[in-house]
């Protein structure tokens, strides 16, 4: 609890603000205008802070990084994407990215809160008190947030590319950043995501090498496969063999695949956890 409200209440409030950003942006675009960057930024910052409080309360309740179930993972992915947007939005002044990020965050947070089975009352301690495993998990999920933002910039690139090719430049597409800017941001995000996930894997491998019995081969395979897919995409892009539209499509398709792998990994993990190590998070 914080200020008398449970973690889920804070998270719902955050989701409400993300939804407000989505509706505000959609309304502006439907009226033929561009969503105000400052207003969008303010709404996203408010949502981000509320989500930070919600995740903080949950983290305190579970005694670690809140990554123990689907709700927490999806919330963390959304939070990671927003963290990056708050940096990129200021640095690159990327028009409409705030709106798109709000859409992604609203979808992830609302869906994760709306499915009760994603946040069971009884949950397991997944890190076993090992901060390195916690770091590995946090970095891995953060990289998924980066890939989420990459998927958004890919959608923006494809929309911009399509509008230029089809010579239909009116409407909301006219507010999108340039092709080159979107491509540059995409490459940087991909590089960042690959590096963060590689770091996460490196941290995990140091643990697995010392304690092979704790290694979940299926989970390792899934995570390494996701990393390899993104790393290959990065390599192909840098070598000039996967460019423009095909590069954007690849980044876009990889994200739901990566999210699906998270789901699979999460599902396989639960039965292996000792039932004794359970904790009950605060619920409204």
């Amino acid at each position, binding site marked *: 609890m914080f200020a008398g409200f449970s973690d889920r209440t804070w998270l719902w409030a955050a989701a409400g603000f993300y939804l407000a950003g989505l509706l505000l942006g959609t309304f502006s675009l439907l009226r033929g205008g561009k969503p105000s960057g400052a207003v969008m930024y303010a709404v996203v910052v408010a949502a981000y802070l509320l989500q930070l409080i919600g995740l903080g309360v949950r983290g305190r309740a579970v005694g670690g990084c809140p990554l123990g179930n689907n709700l927490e993972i999806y919330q963390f992915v959304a939070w990671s994407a927003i963290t990056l947007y708050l940096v990129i939005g200021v640095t690159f002044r990327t028009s409409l990215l705030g709106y798109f990020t709000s859409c992604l965050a609203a979808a992830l947070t609302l869906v994760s809160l709306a499915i009760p089975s994603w946040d069971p009352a009884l949950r397991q301690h997944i890190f076993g008190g090992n901060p390195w495993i916690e770091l590995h998990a946090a970095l891995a999920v953060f990289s998924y947030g980066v890939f989420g933002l990459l998927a958004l910039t890919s959608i923006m690139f494809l929309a911009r590319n399509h509008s230029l090719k089809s010579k239909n*430049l009116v409407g909301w597409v006219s507010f999108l950043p340039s092709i*080159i800017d979107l491509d540059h941001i995409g490459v940087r995000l991909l590089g960042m995501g690959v590096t963060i996930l590689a770091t996460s894997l490196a941290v995990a491998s140091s643990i697995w090498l010392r304690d092979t019995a704790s290694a979940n081969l299926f989970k390792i395979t899934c995570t390494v496969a996701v990393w390899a897919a993104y790393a290959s995409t990065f390599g192909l892009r840098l070598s000039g063999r996967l460019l*423009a*539209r*095909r590069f954007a499509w690849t980044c876009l398709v990889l994200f739901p695949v990566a999210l699906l792998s998270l789901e699979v990994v999460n599902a396989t993990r639960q039965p292996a956890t000792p039932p004794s190590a359970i904790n009950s998070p605060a619920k409204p």
Partner: protein
Amino acid sequence: MNSEGFFVIGASHHRAPLEVREKLSLTPDAAEALRTELAGVAGLHEFAMLSTCNRIEFYGVTSHPEARERISAAFCARQNFDRGAFESFRLSLHGRDAVQHLVEVASGLDSQMLGETEIFGQVKEAYAKAQERRSTGPVLNRLFQKGFQAAKHVRTHTAITEGQVSVANVAVDLALTIYGSLAEIRILLVGAGEIGEKTAKAFQSRGAAAITVASRRFERAMELATALGASAMPFEQTDARLAEFDVVVCATSAPSAVISQAAAAAAMRKRPVRPLFFIDQALPRDVDPLVATLDNVFLYNLDDLGKIAEENRAARVVELVKARAIAAEKAGALWQQVSAQVAALTSGGSADFAPHLAQPVQPRAD
């Protein structure tokens, strides 16, 4: 309230055709001489003269209704233009209507190319010249200064200046949607005719620096390159060096395509990361339409550019009603502020020049 005291007379593209405007156009020397002459018009307390390729207008404050006729007479005599013909297309407004006209002119609402912004600078220059000649006083100073603020308000609170309406500027906007900035892009101009030159100048005016001109007549390419501060290359090298450029503006009179799909594809193999933008302004077309099927390559021809310009023009026309309403509101408020001043200044009736007009004419700085 003497609303006739402040007036504007003149002629513009609305009623005077091009061949007439050519005859009315003032050379800098003629404009200077006319200013000196107008300073001697009885009862003309303040005046400013706006002379552009599309309009000649005189804004003034007077206590003599005949002052306007005297200005017309002096102008027609200097231009050796028939007075009766001038009267047939002469614009003549006074009071609040004249103020609204000033705001509409400065905000581009009265321009031939609706919403263009160059006129704002031209009105400012006209006012600066009048100030320099000390032919403005309290009324015109206030009207012009507040008029500029009103014009800015109209432009920022409507979409009247949004979207380019000339083919050359549409091409530049498209390049910006691809590259974001023009500072680093390299432009190849194939063909050294007038259309290509206009497009190159539009790119330069928006920050493009690296322009290369290629023409079948190399001496013509050199000539244009020198005029533009660009470089020239032989036309025969176009295919081989295509990969060096980001934007290719084609405007030749060649009977068939000068850029083939194979040449564009070969260029893209050499520079796969950066997009390539072809602007085909030629008829018959200079760029094979199949070039547009290549990934990361964008091709726009004259029809495409014209269609976008027309859409932007239509969008501006939609904004015109809103912009005029704002201009009218601002003009009404402004006229309320100055009308008493105008009345006070012109109530003397027979008074001749205002003291500031009695100063000796300053020699031109240029």
